[in-house]
């Protein structure tokens, strides 16, 4: 494969931060201790929808041990203004209200006030002394209900913004209407031999990272603010803080701590501005850490959805047309990833005629946020399930169908984007050729399903600094927080560029004052985009080394070659990297280089999954017997961590498919805000997860990297419901296919 000529890329070195992480030394967000530090607690709304009539903090303020109390009015008022956070935009007016509510609370758990005290217990007690008078309003919890004219409206300032530019006159819950069209949809369906149209529902689900949100802030006496926090984007935290507090960015330094999972949920700020306000008021550093219930109730899960898909194919199984209506629950404020769902829903296929309508709809649930390939899992569940029914109707092998219709280089998506070099077909072929697919599955109540998925991956901007040390090692300063092994994957790319060992690179994720700008760790972009920055830094270091050697040898730069970590000159002159490094200080200035990236866009990633299940027809419980993931990963830099992404993403998709959901009562209270009741997969629920790394290099990256992190979450629900259908003959069109729901369908059959 592509990696054969590489020395470092494709190997499996121990990650640089490994020892700290297996010994407990790694400093995660909540681990920080500062001298004089106070602990904070947040008062949250008990109602899903209410007007705040008054807030009285006087009792809390005078409680012994309390140093500061803040409410929404401590934040500067915001105008309607959109801030671009790299991956996704946010309206500051809404973001500010989400951080601390002002006039209204829009979901249970919405932050209303906060306290800083000597210890966490005092802070929690004091929040109970804050008196909030609410006028309770009826909540609306379902996306279709919220779209009705008579539904309670959450935000006075929200009008429907359609892509054509016109706005609705009255306040509404429907914040956005996306519309995409390709070809002539009517003609497409006329040409079809079989047309299937189905409705799908998915529940609100959470990223479920094990580390709760946290933020420690020091508003120093000189006006400088430092934030220690676990985040996917320290520069995004800085930007949001500056916007929310109306301060210049230069006043704020963000120190990214180790991050215990994010999956899209740790980009938006929640606690950071509140900790800063508490610190300002108390004159002391303040630490805020969420409890698990708040993580569920008050951060940004992925939306529940309603999706209607109609697809048609001719007698030979060629798709002729595809249409989708996609409505997402944005939560309290607009901004669901419904546009991403629109981009992904038919992306696996060459669809000649298509139409997609997408709606972003406010409901009284927490403001939704990105979750690993945001929107794509919902989309794949619906579209791939229809594909499975078309295959059944045509009596066609689902692998053959996918090979026949697979999108490839040059295919234009319904939303208009034309694909560069992609590997959809190759992932289907990998499944077709896998032992798993070729094996026979025997036994009662057992079934096999396959499904494909797509994620577009993003490029965005990165900066790194690399510094040569006299002992031949290179320090690498980066600003992309390392959420799953990117210190290793970036160091390996620098090592490959320089021709040295991965172990000779010393990577460090540093604060926002210590490295150039970096966009978020998200969109499966770090190994790709920061990788390009690292490569550029490596090339610049090589250039300077060549110049230095030319000087030492008194030869022309053109006569010096850099190869395999060695410099060679005329007459057999040669230095190893190490020998040269030892001469640096004696022969000139230090070698410190930078690398940046930002103009490249990724080509997108595809995966095809195959799963065997066994269903217990008496309980509706589904056991996953065998699971195989084939994914186009471009060039796999560190295959073990690539496999890990595939396995972890698939596991999340399995949880989404079989168990996970927010259960609400009619008042809009989540009834299962614990890990006991919101059940993510445990190791008892899963088999070993087989991986097939398909390498179709992305030509835009010097080593052919393609983002791998997100796409593996998309196919599992569709693959699982296809397998369940094979096993027990019922088609689950609502997620999760949890035991009670599946049992209900089995009994109805």
């Amino acid at each position, binding site marked *: 494969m592509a990696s054969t000529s590489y020395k470092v890329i494709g190997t*499996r070195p*121990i*990650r640089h*931060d*490994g*020892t700290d*992480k*297996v*010994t*407990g*030394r*790694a*400093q*995660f967000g*909540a*681990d920080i*201790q500062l001298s004089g530090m106070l602990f904070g607690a947040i008062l949250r709304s008990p109602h899903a929808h209410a007007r705040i009539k008054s807030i009285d903090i006087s009792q809390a303020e005078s409680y012994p041990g309390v140093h500061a109390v803040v409410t929404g009015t401590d934040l500067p008022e915001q105008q309607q203004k959109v801030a671009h956070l790299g991956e996704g935009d946010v309206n500051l007016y809404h973001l500010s209200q989400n951080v601390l509510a002002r006039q209204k609370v829009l979901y249970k758990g919405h932050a209303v006030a906060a306290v800083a005290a000597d210890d966490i*217990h005092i802070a929690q007690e004091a929040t109970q002394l804050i008196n909030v008078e609410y006028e309770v309003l009826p909540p609306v919890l379902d996306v279709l209900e919220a779209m009705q004219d008579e539904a309670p409206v959450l935000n006075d300032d929200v009008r429907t913004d359609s892509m054509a530019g016109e706005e609705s006159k009255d306040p509404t819950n429907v914040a956005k209407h996306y519309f995409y069209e390709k070809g002539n949809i009517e003609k497409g369906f006329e040409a079809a031999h079989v047309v299937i149209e189905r409705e799908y529902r998915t529940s609100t689900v959470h*990223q*479920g*990272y*094990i*580390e*709760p949100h946290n933020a420690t802030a020091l508003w120093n006496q000189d006006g400088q603010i430092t934030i220690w926090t676990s985040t996917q984007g320290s520069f995004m935290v800085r930007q949001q803080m500056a916007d929310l507090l109306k301060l210049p960015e230069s006043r704020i330094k963000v120190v990214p701590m*180790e*991050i*215990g*999972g*994010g*999956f899209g949920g740790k980009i938006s700020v929640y606690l950071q501005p509140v900790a800063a306000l508490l610190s300002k008021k108390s004159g002391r550093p303040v630490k805020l*850490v969420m*409890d*698990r219930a708040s993580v569920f109730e008050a951060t940004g899960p992925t939306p529940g959805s309603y999706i209607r898909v109609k697809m048609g194919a001719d007698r030979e199984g060629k798709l002729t047309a595809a249409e989708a209506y996609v409505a997402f629950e944005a939560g309290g404020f607009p901004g669901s990833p419904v546009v991403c769902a629109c981009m992904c829903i038919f992306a696996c296929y060459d669809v000649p005629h298509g139409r997609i309508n997408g709606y972003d709809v406010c409901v009284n649930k927490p403001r939704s946020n990105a979750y690993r390939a945001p929107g794509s899992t919902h989309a794949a569940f619906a579209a791939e399930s229809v594909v499975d029914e078309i295959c059944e109707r045509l009596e066609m092998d689902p692998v053959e169908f996918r090979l026949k219709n697979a999108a490839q280089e040059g295919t234009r998506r319904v939303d208009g984007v034309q694909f560069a070099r992609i590997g959809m077909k190759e992932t289907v072929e990998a499944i077709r050729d896998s032992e798993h697919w070729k094996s026979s599955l025997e036994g009662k109540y057992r079934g096999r399903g396959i499904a494909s998925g797509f994620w577009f991956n993003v490029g965005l901007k990165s900066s790194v600094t690399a510094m040569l040390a006299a002992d031949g090692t290179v320090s690498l300063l980066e600003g992309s927080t390392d*959420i*799953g*092994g990117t210190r290793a994957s970036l160091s390996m790319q620098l090592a490959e560029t320089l021709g040295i060992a991965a172990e000779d690179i010393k990577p460090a994720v540093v604060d926002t004052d210590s490295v150039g700008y970096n966009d978020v760790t998200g969109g499966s972009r770090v190994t790709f985009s920061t990788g390009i920055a690292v490569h550029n830094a490596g090339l610049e270091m090589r250039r300077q080394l060549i110049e230095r050697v030319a000087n030492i040898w008194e030869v022309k730069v053109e006569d010096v070659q850099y190869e395999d970590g060695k410099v060679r000159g005329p007459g057999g002159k040669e230095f190893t990297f190490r020998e040269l490094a030892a001469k640096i200080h004696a022969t000139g200035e230090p070698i410190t280089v930078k690398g940046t990236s930002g103009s490249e866009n990724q080509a997108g990633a595809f995966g095809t999954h195959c799963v065997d299940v066994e269903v217990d027809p008496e309980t509706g419980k589904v056991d996953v017997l065998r699971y195989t993931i084939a994914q186009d990963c471009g060039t796999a830099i*560190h295959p*073990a*961590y690539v*496999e*890990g*992404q595939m*396995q*972890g*993403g*698939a*596991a*999340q998709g399995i949880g989404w498919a079989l168990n996970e959901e927010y259960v609400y009562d009619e008042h809009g209270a989540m009834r299962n805000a*614990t*890990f*006991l009741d919101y059940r*993510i*997969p*445990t*190791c*008892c629920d*899963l088999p*070993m*997860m087989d991986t097939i790394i398909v390498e179709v290099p992305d030509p835009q990256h010097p080593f052919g990297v393609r983002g791998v992190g997100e796409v593996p979450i998309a196919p599992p629900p569709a693959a699982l419901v296809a397998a369940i259908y094979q096993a027990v003959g019922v088609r689950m069109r609502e997620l999760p296919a949890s035991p009670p729901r599946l049992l209900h369908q089995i009994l109805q059959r």
Partner: protein
Amino acid sequence: MAKKRIVTTTINGKETQFLCQPRQTLLEILRDDLALTGSKEGCSNGNCGACTVLCNGKAVNSCLILAVEAEGAEIETIEGVAPVDGLDSLQDAFLQQAALQCGICTPGFIMSAKALLQEQPDPSEEDIRFNLAGNLCRCTGYDKIVRAVQDAAAARQQV
């Protein structure tokens, strides 16, 4: 506020005294007072296993134990696992197998796995999965974690 108590325990082989309020958990004391932040807090109600420590050799959720209950107990935390001059075979195996991504769950898994291997030196895959089911990992899908424990078991058998 209730009066603070003095508690005497052994932590990572060293006799340790601390002061605590009756309502404080062992996890809180370990993290906030004793600066042993390797034990993580993921849920504080016994559901995630990130806070797992060994108490008299048994794996327990330190968020479910009151600090006062630790009186006289032998506690081992992740900070006590590695020998002075290297890593424990479990820690080694986690690194070799790339059994961690974000790493927040890792200390808890290593502690649970350590307790398991003390009791069952040669566990089957099923034993491992059953015994680690109280530890949640959201990043890895568990495949590499299970393999790491298998490798560590094999490595321990060899010495």
